[in-house]
């Protein structure tokens, strides 16, 4: 198949599926899940063929949406290593999550709605991956937000779920504002929104004048785009929505809030790396925010007791890693970690889903325990995922984490000692909390009735776990990564490489030993750090800020509204309008005499304007 028809299929098929399911919701109640899953399998097939597609430096144009003057907004596709690899990940995990959901959502009343939203998500995510210009990316960026909103709030009757959906949506608006501002600045500077053309004008030196004299504009554009990425990829301080988003169904958490959508921010940053790289300030800010997010989220994760929350904070932490890598001048390292992380984190989430399913929707790890015997497959896959995430040597996560640490190492061009330290500390903490999770949930004795009666999940849910176990181990090796079009970073040589390797190994061992010692046979958490458990009180801080600020702000707004909105812009025009209206009603008396009079007056005015009032407008 031609690349254009492949990409067109990948983009439009899930849209069709979503539309059909949503329009004929009632009719398709019992087949919607099959439609959606079938579509996801076809998409995966297309993505596999697409892996062999040739690079298209100028993109493929599907449809010219808007063209006014120099401004063009097209629906066009970019075909390069990055988009091929990302499309593979998205469709692969998407397909597995669809299959998994067949089991997980079997008894849900609104299964059709769920699968419709899942298809919508696949459509939007594919759009982001394939977008060859920023406007198209922004449109799909928003669509992803909408489908995420729908899926987080799938159980909208639960107030927490509804609130979480709203929170995710609103927090992302802050980021989107930045994204849009960034796009507008870039358009203003270059007159392009297409990524290839932007890169062209950046590299051809057309902007040298601006870069030399007004570097802050480019910095501002880069930061605007980064703000968008911060919203989607949940970087501090916009990270607050991601843990709450765990109220959504677990397969959704695996697909959207671990493997694909939250990675879109990183993906976008790598796409526009030429802008970030153009300004040191942007890179530094990005690196620091990534580093802080990584460390802070890891600290929070050590004190959570909800199995999904732990994984959510772990996701935050790993996203911070990727963002830091991009900021430090290692977009390839960031993308590579994204690639390996997607597999094992999706598997961990799906595994946690199996546990939750088995324990009758019990999510507290302190009420689990001893599950390794009852759910052997889940346990072994979960253990592999944990090992990969911790960075145990020879697992997928080891290679990509290694790459990021190497970028942060001071010997590297942009490296930074403090960030390197933070990264190593994060790695230690990662090993610690993941070991804690496995030890508490799977070993020891059952601490709850539900855990006691747990049994292995059905085959459709086990199958994706097993399938994902393979790339979790192997994805870091060139023989698999290269054909799958992952962006594999160059191997770092030199004296630093040994230090990095050593630090990374020590981190894993220290974290693992500390957690095993502390948590073996523990019935309740022996460590209690309220600051971490309460997520640094950031939510409370925001709530207080909102509440404190809100009262004053509300007062101000009320005053302003009374005067300006209510008075000047509503009452006054309303009064004017009704005044004019009644004046016109007076004219509009129905009397022909009056009409003729008005007409005559109009003629006088127009003739006057024509003859005597002939200044140029």
């Amino acid at each position, binding site marked *: 198949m031609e690349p254009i028809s492949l990409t067109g299929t990948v983009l439009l098929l899930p849209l069709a599926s979503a539309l059909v399911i949503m329009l004929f919701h009632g009719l398709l109640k019992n087949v919607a899940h099959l439609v959606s899953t079938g579509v996801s399998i076809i998409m995966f097939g297309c993505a596999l063929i697409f892996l062999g597609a040739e690079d298209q430096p100028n993109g493929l144009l599907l449809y010219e*949406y808007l063209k006014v003057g120099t401004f063009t907004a097209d629906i066009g596709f970019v075909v390069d290593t990055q988009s091929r690899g990302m499309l593979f990940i998205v469709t692969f995990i998407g397909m597995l999550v669809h299959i998994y959901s067949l089991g997980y959502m079997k008894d849900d009343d609104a299964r059709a709605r769920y699968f419709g939203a899942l298809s919508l998500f696949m459509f939007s995510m594919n759009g982001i991956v394939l977008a060859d210009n920023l406007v198209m990316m922004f449109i799909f960026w928003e669509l992803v937000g909408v489908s995420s909103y729908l899926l987080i709030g799938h159980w909208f009757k639960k107030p927490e779920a509804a609130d979480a959906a709203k929170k995710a949506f609103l927090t992302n608006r802050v980021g989107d504002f930045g994204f849009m501002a960034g796009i507008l600045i870039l358009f203003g500077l270059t007159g392009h929104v297409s990524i290839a053309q932007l890169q062209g004008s950046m590299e051809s030196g057309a902007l040298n004048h601006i870069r030399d004299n007004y570097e802050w504009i480019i910095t501002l554009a880069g930061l605007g785009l980064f703000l968008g990425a911060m919203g989607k990829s949940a970087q501090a301080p916009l990270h607050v929505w991601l843990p709450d988003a765990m109220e959504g169904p677990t397969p959704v958490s695996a697909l959207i809030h671990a493997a694909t959508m939250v990675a879109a921010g990183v993906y976008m940053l790598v796409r526009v790396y030429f802008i970030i790289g153009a300004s040191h300030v942007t890179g530094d800010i990005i690196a620091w925010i990534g580093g802080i997010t990584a460390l802070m989220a890891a600290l929070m994760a050590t004190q959570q007791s909800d199995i999904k929350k732990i994984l959510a904070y772990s996701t935050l932490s790993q996203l911070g890693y990727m963002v830091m890598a991009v900021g430090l001048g290692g977009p390839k390292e960031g993308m590579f970690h994204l690639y390996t992380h997607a597999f094992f984190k999706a598997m961990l989430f799906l595994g946690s889903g199996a546990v939750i399913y088995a324990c009758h929707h019990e999510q507290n790890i302190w009420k689990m325990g001893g599950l390794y015997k009852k759910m052997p497959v889940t346990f072994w896959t979960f253990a592999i995922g944990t090992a990969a995430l911790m960075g145990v040597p020879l697992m997928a996560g080891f290679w990509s984490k290694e790459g990021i640490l190497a970028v942060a190492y001071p010997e590297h061009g942009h490296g930074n000692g403090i960030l390197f330290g933070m990264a190593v500390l994060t790695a230690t903490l990662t090993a610690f909390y993941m070991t804690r999770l496995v030890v508490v949930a799977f070993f020891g004795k059952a601490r709850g009735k539900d855990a006691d009666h747990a049994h292995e999940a059905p085959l459709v849910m086990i199958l994706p776990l097993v399938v994902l176990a393979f790339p979790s181990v192997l994805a870091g090796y060139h023989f698999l990564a290269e054909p799958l079009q992952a962006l594999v970073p160059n191997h770092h040589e030199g004296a630093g490489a040994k230090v990095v390797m050593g630090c990374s190994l020590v981190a894993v061992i220290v974290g693992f030993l500390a957690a095993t010692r502390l948590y073996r046979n523990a019935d309740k958490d022996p460590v209690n750090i309220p600051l971490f458990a309460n997520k640094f009180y950031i939510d409370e801080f925001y709530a207080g800020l909102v509440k404190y600020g809100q009262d004053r702000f509300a007062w101000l707004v009320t005053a302003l509204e009374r005067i300006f909105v209510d008075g000047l812009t509503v009452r006054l025009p309303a009064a004017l309008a009704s005044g004019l209206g009644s004046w016109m009603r007076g004219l509009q008396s129905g009397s022909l005499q009056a009409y*003729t009079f008005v007409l005559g007056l109009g003629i006088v005015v127009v003739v006057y304007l*024509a003859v005597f009032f002939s200044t140029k407008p």
Partner: protein
Amino acid sequence: MSPLSLELGLGLLGLVLLLVESFASVPRKLIAYAAIGGLLAALAVIVSGAAGSVPDSLKEFYVVDPLALFYKGFAIIATLATIILSLEYAPIIHQFVATHPERTKEAGLGEFYSLPLFVCVGMMVMASAVDLITIFVALELVTVSFYVLVAFMRRSAASLEAGVKYLILGALSTGLLVYGMSWLYGMTGELSLSGVAYKLAHWEGNSAPILFAVGLMLAGLAFKVGAVPFHIWIPDVYQGAPTPVTAFLSVGSKAAGFVVLTRIVGTFLTPGSVVAGPVIQILLILGGATILLGNLAAIAQTNFKRLLGYSSIAHAGYLLVALACIHTGGLKMTSGEVAAFYLATYLPMTFVCFLILSAMRAKGYGEDIASLKGLGRANPTLGLALAIALASLAGLPLTAGFMGKFFVIFATVLEGYYTYLAIAVIGAATGFFYYFKVILAVYSKPDGPSEGPTPDLGLLSKVSLAVFVAAILVVGVYPDLIRFALVK
């Protein structure tokens, strides 16, 4: 095949149908179907591009350019829609025309189906006319036919009143136009627009008489398109006239006015013209005032038909502003083409509203906005169609109406008329308010125990409704559909 023969053919068809109506006692519906068939054939000729050119000897009076062909097609589609609407509205017409409506079935309907053909011929000639006399004769053919159509329901006081008002004010405005034309002829000695343009570009001496002529002509045409303050006849006439005629007036008559305005303004604004400044000035002031007054006055309306009347005034304002923005190179369209595009988007959404209004009226429901309550529930398809049309009238993105407004607003930006940009935006914002009030009514609970209105539509109406709604949505995402027809 010369396009002139299309007009002659349609005119002949109209005459034949009149004779058939008066001599034979065929079912009146057949007359309507014959008219529809003729129009469809003409449309096919235009769309297929089989309409060729005219002999050189006619070039001074009659041109065939893309704009002319576009407006010819536009006239045919508007006429088709009007006749389909009339079929829907026939019971009401019959009730107010026949001496004994309970005894006869179709008395007085024949002319109602054949008169629009004459209007169509007039509009088609007008689209090509580039000579003052040709323009005038074509305009009169349209206007006189409309006098009859507006007052058609002779047993309805409202229709008669509307007819008298339209006749007297229309005659006044025609007088103005001709007076202006005679001054122009007197000063330049030219009747063809190209001749006038040449004279205007090389004018020496006092320009006041020319400006006087220009003012009079613009005033006369402003009446035809319903620009403030010459809009004064519109609400009463629109409300009183039979609904299909109202629709025809607000689309057909308006388009006719604008095609003439496009040609004449194009002549006045020819490079180097002495009258360019004042003409732009007048267009902008009239346009701005029209946008503001049309939108503001629409807010207070409770009658849907009257509301559409004010809405049509407001839309005329945008069209006038569009005509004033002549440096639209960035849009790859001329100002006339921007206006034509706007009209083309205006046609489907207006006809959807009027189609539903006609069907409602034919089933005995009122024309108030309140009587639409519950339509969305009782008949979801019609409710949705109406909601889409109204959203498009308001200019919601992804509808045709948005694209029309977008180009006009873009044109003001290119031209740097920021005052009028602000006015256009304010007008659009106001529009959202009153159009969505109607949408709200469509989707709110009906008063009392009733289930909401359940109008019936004939097959033709259903088809045209579907086509129009599809057009609104398709043009909303693919404006080039119309742009390609315009800009060859």
